[in-house]
């Protein structure tokens, strides 16, 4: 019996553009179908994974997450290089943790000089991610934009409260803006419009709808991304037709469930594998919802997600 197939009626397309510069630049976007529905449309650029590098040695990471980076966590340049050479990172995300005014509050100039060093040392696209403190991020990201002029970095998170000043720097020094909003499709659309009005080109905007991992609100992140993709692809909402980036590693590894040892609770199994799976499975859910770029931490989790991407896109 020939079955009756219900093909989704698409009428939109995600904008496609390139991140970074040179021969390691990364193409993103361009989808004309839901994630991995390549039996219904095209997904010309498979999702990409950026590996995170912290700008100061992490103090509270689960043991399993630190192991792959022993010896380099004190040196962001060495750390970034290791991610590329040993773990094949497509991109690097420098998390500017130390600039947090409620934490170490590192000076903006110092932070920017470090970002410049990392940017000069790597050939893959670089994401720099602030602390979501508007004043500090404005100061830090504007200086980084200037120092790294023309490198086509991704600057974020850019929120409604600081979009004008960071957005202007991104336009002036040719970088991509990460438009960041708190788990709400309407706010996401609104910020995209504001950035468009400011003059940010459609080729320089990637969305972050805010994510969380398994057990900590994954379902909210998942459904907002699905709604964004539905509006973009089937409802001709051109203000939402942008690639999506998800900064998921920090969210999954901060959960206490990545730390409980098998000795403390035998029903939880091996702590290392559990942490890896919590990160990889959370990341995969976001991919199934519509993420184009993931920021991840553990090389084994990345390997699992890459393998699933290869399987689902038929590039094994």
């Amino acid at each position: 019996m020939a079955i009756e197939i219900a093909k989704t009626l698409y009428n939109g397309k995600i904008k496609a553009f390139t991140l970074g510069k040179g021969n390691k630049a990364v193409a993103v976007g361009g989808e004309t179908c839901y994630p991995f529905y390549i039996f219904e449309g095209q997904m010309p650029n498979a999702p990409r994974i950026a590996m995170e590098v912290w700008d100061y040695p992490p103090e509270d990471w689960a043991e399993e997450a630190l192991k792959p980076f022993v010896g380099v966590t004190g040196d962001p340049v060495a750390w970034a290089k290791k991610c590329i050479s040993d773990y094949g990172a497509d991109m690097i995300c420098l998390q500017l943790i130390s600039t947090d005014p409620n934490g170490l509050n590192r000076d903006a100039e110092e932070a920017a000089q470090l970002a410049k060093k990392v940017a000069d040392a790597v050939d893959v696209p670089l994401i720099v991610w602030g602390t979501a403190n508007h004043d500090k991020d404005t100061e830090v990201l504007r200086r980084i934009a200037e120092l790294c002029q023309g490198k086509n970095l991704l600057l974020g998170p850019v929120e409604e409260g600081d979009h004008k000043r960071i957005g202007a720097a991104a336009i002036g020094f040719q970088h991509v803006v990460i438009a960041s909003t708190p788990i709400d499709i309407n706010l996401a659309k609104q910020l995209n419009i504001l950035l468009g009005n400011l003059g940010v080109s459609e080729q320089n905007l990637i969305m972050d709808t805010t994510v969380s991992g398994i057990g900590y609100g994954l379902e909210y992140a998942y459904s907002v991304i699905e709604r964004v993709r539905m509006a973009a692809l089937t409802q001709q909402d051109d203000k939402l037709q942008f690639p999506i980036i998800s900064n998921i590693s920090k969210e999954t590894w901060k959960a206490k469930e990545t730390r409980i040892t098998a000795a403390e609770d035998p029903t939880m199994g091996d702590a290392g594998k559990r942490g890896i799976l919590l990160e990889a499975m959370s990341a995969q859910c976001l991919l199934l919802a519509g993420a184009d770029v993931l920021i991840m931490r553990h090389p084994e989790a990345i390997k699992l997600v890459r393998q699933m991407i290869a399987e689902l896109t038929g590039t094994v």
Partner: protein
Amino acid sequence: MPLTGIQIFKLLPKTNCGKCGVPTCLAFAMNLAAGKAELSKCPDVSEEAKAQLMEASAPPIRVVTIGAGPRAFKIGGETVMFRHEKRFENPPGLAVLVTDGMADAEVDDRLARAGKLRYLRVGLTLRPELVAVKETTGDAAKFEALVSKVARAHDGGILLISANPDILAAGIKACADRKPLLCAATKDNWEKVAGLAKANASPVVAKGANLDEVADLTAKLTQAGVNDIIIDSGSRAIRQAFQDQVTIRASALVKKFRPLGYPTIVFPCEMTTDPMMEAMIASMFVAKYGSIIVLSDFQGESLFPLLVERMNIFTDPQRPLATTQGVYEIGVPKEASPVIITTNFSLTYFLVSGYIETSKVPAYLLIMDTEGLSVMTAWAAGKFTADAIAPFVRKSEVWNKVKHRKLIIPGYAAAESGGLEEELPEWEIMVGPRDGALLPGYLKAWKA
């Protein structure tokens, strides 16, 4: 083609008796058309109309009950492609595989884990449902003995896997009252398997080499009187299996194509030999439309994330999960430990309790029932205000547990501090940080 509400209305008695639970026949007809009501609720519908309406009123994806007794559970009944459109109804059952070729000790270990691995979260117990017993030796007696063992050790659902109807019959004999799921009817054996399913009122898996073959088979099974069907699309390649799941769901919901209007079964255990990859594949099927997911093994490190993911994806988007109101002890608090209050949105509770644990400062955490709303939303909705908080704090009797009288309220509820000082004159109200991430630093500096 499904009937419209008006078409259905014409077939109803038009008495507006209200016995179906809605006041008018028209409203009932609209609910039937939307798949939100069952025809059996109407006591006066004629047999003739019933026959016509059965087709239109059946849910587009059949609900099938798996197992019997207190641990029976339902699968199928889904009405949307995306959870935000309404909600996903019935979470997939997770099964662990044992075979008659497996060493006894291995079988025992798996059965022990299937029984033992369970997790308490937001007041719910998360645990896997099924044991899949697979025949690999062709020995009916051996299979029957293994099924008996499983039935004794495991009180959840049982899935019997063999291509040979005689072996399935032997398995049924060992656990008939458990209504085992028979796996599988194929184009070669379906008549015999259908006979077994009918005789024992067991649900049955229809397995084809592709979806066209599955549709043929489900049509034949329904003609033979077997309606509790679960689809195995046959594919064990990840990409094809993913496509099949999407195609089945869309065909059933959008085209109302009956031959695919059934729950599905997927076999990550047959799609990879790497346990980590197997967990990833299972995770994909939790989000993308698997109704029973068969795993080669249950281990805490992969089962826990899968169960929590399942709970997340199948949470009703319109009804956030809430934590029970009360006084929670984080660590081992003493009489000089801080007292913190927040709302009972389950995420708020998880995050705040997690941050308190991170701070290594033991504390009393007061969780107040705000109908599952977060601090900001509850405050804006007037459910987390001084006049509501004060009686709760008094009733909690937390003052019996501490010597000091200092109450830490969330930064987002700072506007209530004045009101609270009036309502709770014996307490000093302290405004904590807005962002939970800052709580560890705040608590380390806090003094009674």
